[in-house]
């Protein structure tokens, strides 16, 4: 053993580890700031639907039947179609989802003339667009999904998240290389021992969750590989779309002709698609409804009894139509084999990443692992800082103190600041005026504004105090969430429990649990910050 250690220090392995250590440290730190946000929002996104139920209480006063009869389904399609034809005849895209337990309204998407997708809901009975007091202007739990994969910044955001995730993959691989005793460290946790404890917590959590960390980072990247490696695709195809239709063995995408046209009856297309698939549909769209190139897809409702147990289940099948002539141009049946093993690999990765199979147990597993992963990342960035503070290194020459100060500020804002912004989102959801134009957009603006304020807060005040203050603020906002809900909507978690509204109840219970944890942590941090203040004072005067 001693010989092996000696060889490791001097030999090839030792040289290799020395080269990999800065790779791990810096890729981990640079990625860590955004990665913590991506992990926390991704963890919340696992439960986006229960969160939406809390965030949009007015919408969920509607109740949808578990299963819809054929006449109900066609009636809902007719209502959505009537709305589109009357108000959005020249839109670039129509999409319509039928009411379900997850979303009790008739969900409509359409493309605005000025670009961007608009989302609305129709009342399933009256067919009228739901107003601000029936459907709160909010992204709901989807806000966390969007922050998670694109930071609300479209394609730019997808690239930033991808770069950060790639650095995570790099720090995982280099972390495994520099890590000497994976098995031993599994049983080592020295609590409340300063730097050693942060290192133990970081390595223990990382080793414990390593399979999850590799799976979640690799799958997150692979399901967007078409975007990130588009230059490889355009070597062989005119456009990425061409690759997609070739892979799916579907007719090629049509380009707009500029000739105006009107689509045939969507109710008829929907009914024909259901007959063709032999099962209920749940979604219909029309691309370029005002153009003679218009095409429509009807999607079959995935069968949960098959989908939940089978990681390779693709979807409930789909039918493609020429929307102007009504001609059926392509059919994929629900039981049809996946096109090729590599495509099946993508489906598997996607469904593992998005918790689309495995039911509630798998969701809770991802939730817990996501929290552990986020804690591992936070411990890593804090560890980086503690080492620098103690080591008195001169990594950046004379600029070193400034660079360290910036890093410390970003550490705080990335961890406690992000947590404050997340709980702040729930508060703005309750506090913004109901009739505010673009209310959903303002909620997101507020989320980023709060996050920015925490950066400023961390930049101007001493770090140890800011850690404690932001942690305390997060705790208070969490613990008071049921009260603000009571004041603004008259609802609270005891009433939710009595009404058996378990999703809403769980959201508030979760806030209280996280609040209590943070309260305990903030008291610990406050004690520590006083100790630090005293020792700093002693250094200055002594």
């Amino acid at each position: 053993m001693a010989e092996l250690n000696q060889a490791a220090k001097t030999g090839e392995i030792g040289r290799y580890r020395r080269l990999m250590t800065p790779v791990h440290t810096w890729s981990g730190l640079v990625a860590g700031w955004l990665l913590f946000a991506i992990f926390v929002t991704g963890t919340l996104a696992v439960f986006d639907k229960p969160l939406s139920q809390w965030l949009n209480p007015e919408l969920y006063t509607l109740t949808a039947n578990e299963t819809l009869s054929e006449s109900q389904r066609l009636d809902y399609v007719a209502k959505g179609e009537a709305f589109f034809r009357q108000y959005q005849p020249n839109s670039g895209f129509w999409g319509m989802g039928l009411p379900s337990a997850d979303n009790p309204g008739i969900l409509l998407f359409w493309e605005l003339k000025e670009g961007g997708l608009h989302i609305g809901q129709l009342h399933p009975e009256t067919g009228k667009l739901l107003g601000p007091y029936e459907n709160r202007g909010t992204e709901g739990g989807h806000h966390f999904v969007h922050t998670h994969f694109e930071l609300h910044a479209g394609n730019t955001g997808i690239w930033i998240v991808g770069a950060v995730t790639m650095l995570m993959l790099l720090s995982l691989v280099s972390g495994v290389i520099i890590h000497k005793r994976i098995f031993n460290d599994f049983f080592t946790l020295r609590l409340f021992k300063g730097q050693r404890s942060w290192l133990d917590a970081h390595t223990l959590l990382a080793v414990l969750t390593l399979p999850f960390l590799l799976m979640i980072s690799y799958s997150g990247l692979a399901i967007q590989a078409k975007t990130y490696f588009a230059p490889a695709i355009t070597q062989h195809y005119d456009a990425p779309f061409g690759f997609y239709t070739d892979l799916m063995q579907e007719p090629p995408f049509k380009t707009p002709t500029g000739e105006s046209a009107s689509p045939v009856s969507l109710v008829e297309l929907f009914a024909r698609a259901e007959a063709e698939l032999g099962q209920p549909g749940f979604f219909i769209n029309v691309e370029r409804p005002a153009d003679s190139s218009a095409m429509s897809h009807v999607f079959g409702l995935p069968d949960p009894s098959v989908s939940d147990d089978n990681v390779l289940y693709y979807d409930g099948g789909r039918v493609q139509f020429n929307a102007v002539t009504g001609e059926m141009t392509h059919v994929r049946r629900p039981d049809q084999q996946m096109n090729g093993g590599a495509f099946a690999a993508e489906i598997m990765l996607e469904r593992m990443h998005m918790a689309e199979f495995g039911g509630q147990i798998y969701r809770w597993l991802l939730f817990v692992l996501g929290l552990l992963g986020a804690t591992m990342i936070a411990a890593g960035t804090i560890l980086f800082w503690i080492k620098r503070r103690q080591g008195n290194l001169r990594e950046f020459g004379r600029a070193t103190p400034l660079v360290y100060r910036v890093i410390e500020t970003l550490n705080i804002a990335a961890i406690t600041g992000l947590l404050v912004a997340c709980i702040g989102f729930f508060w703005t959801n309750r506090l913004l005026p109901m009739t505010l134009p673009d209310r959903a957009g303002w909620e997101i603006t507020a989320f980023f504004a709060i996050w920015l304020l925490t950066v400023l807060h961390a930049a101007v005040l001493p770090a140890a105090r800011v850690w404690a203050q932001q942690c305390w603020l997060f705790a208070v906002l969490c613990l008071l969430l049921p009260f603000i809900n009571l004041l603004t909507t008259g609802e609270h978690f005891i009433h939710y429990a009595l009404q058996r509204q378990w999703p809403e109840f769980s959201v508030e219970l979760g806030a209280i649990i996280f609040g209590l944890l943070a309260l305990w942590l903030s008291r610990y941090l406050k004690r520590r910050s006083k100790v630090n203040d005293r020792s700093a004072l002693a250094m200055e005067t002594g």
Partner: protein
Amino acid sequence: MTTLLIPKPFQVSLKIMAALLGGYVFTVIFVGCVAVIWPGRLADAMQTGLMLSFAVYSGAMIWAFSQSNWQRAWLVMLIPAAIMWGMTLWLS
């Protein structure tokens, strides 16, 4: 030696760029190459390359960082990339 003329921070930056940028170019060319040498339909072969892409990218980055200097880091990215590029052109 050219190494002596370039300040240390720039040498480090050049090595980091070899890993991140050079590794990306390496992987794009790898995916394009797999698309033509993998048996079966072009789309399936392309998809195979895409699914492998991030394993290859992270491997390439580690390989670049393992080199003792930035020149070698760029060489180990660009020489195999050039060979794969040639194969892609020859086969397609």
